[in-house]
């Protein structure tokens, strides 16, 4: 994390209840973005067994593409929302193409090769973004309906952030329902456990992998699209978010759905309050937390130990 998280406002520390509430809401907003990105990362790792370094790059693409669509749809009604839909779907498409054309060929190789290929994607996407959108800071204005701020205990909190906080659990619930109460969800969970067996039962595992990677990419793209009105869209936002997303999945447990949510909530609050209480130590503390979890419970707080 090189710069301060954008959703936070750093002020002098004072134990005022309304201020603490606002601060924890800021942390919650950031946690929802972390959750969107990390759940895609965790899904891809759980099913494909690939730790996708390029997930932060897909998130960045989501933000840039949303900016692009917003400037295309100027004066159209619901301009921002269409941009979010098209932006995130474009990222999903890009993810699907990457899996289909490239990643596919590396499944038979060692894990290191897959990891490094996703790192190659990080380099390529960051430079493509620089070529297309330049190195300056871009921004998207908040949608008209959510422009205001809500008074909470005498302080003002942006409506848009409240929308994000409400949306997060909605998406989490939707995903949980799909994963645990639908045929597709059953197949995805089965693929995470034993892909050969699933293949011999007649499921087209090749396509399943493409679908899962596309969904994961869509989640990252959606995160980027939704963060665009409250964050500066700059090169480097990919590298910043990916490490935090790694921390979230490590704390929660790689491949664990609720673990990812818990990890995101913890990290969101730690960043939000850590920066106030120990501005110097908060960043160190986050990495120590990651290391401690890996040492004591490598499968994460809510994950299950590997049987293998």
């Amino acid at each position, binding site marked *: 994390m090189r710069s301060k998280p954008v959703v936070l406002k750093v002020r002098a520390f004072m134990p005022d209840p309304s201020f603490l509430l606002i601060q924890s809401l800021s942390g919650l907003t950031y946690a929802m973005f972390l959750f969107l990105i990390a759940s895609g990362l965790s899904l891809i790792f759980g099913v494909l067994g690939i*730790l996708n370094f390029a997930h932060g790059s897909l998130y960045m693409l989501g933000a840039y593409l949303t900016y692009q669509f917003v400037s295309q749809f100027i004066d159209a009604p619901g301009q921002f929302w269409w941009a979010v839909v098209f932006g995130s779907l474009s990222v999903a498409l890009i993810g699907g193409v990457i899996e289909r054309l*490239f990643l596919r*060929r*590396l499944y038979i*190789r060692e*894990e*290191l*090769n897959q*990891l*490094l*290929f996703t*790192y*190659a*994607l*990080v*380099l*390529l996407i*960051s*430079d*493509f973004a*620089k*070529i297309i959108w330049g190195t300056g800071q871009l921004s998207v204005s908040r949608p008209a309906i959510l422009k205001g701020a809500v008074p909470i205990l005498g302080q003002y909190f942006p409506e848009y952030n409240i929308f994000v906080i409400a949306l997060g659990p909605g998406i989490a619930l939707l995903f949980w329902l799909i994963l645990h109460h639908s045929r597709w969800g059953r197949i995805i969970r089965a693929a995470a456990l034993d892909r050969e067996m699933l293949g011999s039962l007649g499921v087209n595992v090749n396509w399943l992998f493409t679908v899962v990677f596309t969904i994961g990419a869509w989640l990252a793209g959606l995160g980027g699209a939704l963060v665009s009105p409250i964050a500066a869209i700059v090169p480097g936002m990919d*590298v910043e978010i990916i*490490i935090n997303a*790694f921390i979230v999945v*490590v704390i929660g447990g*790689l491949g664990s759905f609720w673990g990812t949510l818990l990890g995101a909530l913890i990290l969101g609050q730690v960043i939000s309050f850590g920066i106030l209480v120990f501005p*110097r*130590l908060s*960043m*160190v503390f*986050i*990495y*120590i937390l*990651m*290391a401690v979890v*890996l*040492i004591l419970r*490598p499968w994460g707080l809510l994950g299950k130990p590997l049987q293998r």
Partner: protein
Amino acid sequence: MFKENWFLIAIIFLLALVPLSDSRFYIFLGTDILIMGLFAVSLNLLLGYTGLVCFGQAAYFGIGAYTYTLLMKKASFSFPFAFLAAPVFGAVAALIIGIFCIQRTKIYFAMLTLAFSQIVWAIVFKWNSLTGGDNGIIGIPFPQHLDSPTRFYYFTLVVVVFSFYIMRKAVNSPFGRMLTTIRENPERTEFIGINVKLFQLLAFMISGFFSAIAGALFAIFNHSVFPDLLFWPHSAEVLIMTLLGGMYSFFGPLVGAAVMLYLRMLVTSYTQYWPLIMGTILALLLFFFPGGIVGFLKTQRLFSREK
């Protein structure tokens, strides 16, 4: 073996002739390649020889660089002492971190090395009063007798060649064979009564030791140190160099470092989009030359022999 040694002596001799070209460009490039080559070869002790994917090697490079810098600048140590303290600090850090990391395997090992290197980076980045934070430290005191590019090139050459000599001795010794055995099958090695974790820890320490030497050399070479030296993309970069050259040969990583740094020199004089080129090289490498440059050359030679 014998033939190979003569070949290596010839290469060293050729490297010693580089300053005669009297071109600052080649002297600087040569120094850079030797330093990064040492860094990559030391990483490869873990990656290629022991089969441990370390994603936080930049930490030891950075610890070496900062140890040397701080001892010279803040503590006014004498040069030999500061220069020797760097690898010792690197090895001690690797020992402490390694004890935790080797408990884990595969992806979890990689993640844990990443977490620790990020801890070290965050400390360096945030400890303004000691490390200068984001601004780094510039104007590192410099021993008088190394005060010309040519002299420093020879100094680097001697240090790097000596380091390679020791590392090569180590990997060709029974100890090194044991590391390869562990790489091939850790479970079976454990079954025949070998303390696998101890060997992995020793490899981790040796690797940290030599990475720190590379870091200290880099600090002198660059006259400055920055927290970016410890940031994770630096770990990724040296991993790519190692892979580019070939992780299954001792000097592969050095070849990788040479090719990559030369290309970077070439490319950055035309365009600022070096990461684009590096990403493309990496992707091509993964798809078409999984054995790296040296691996590719070896298979070519094998084919011609079979014919």
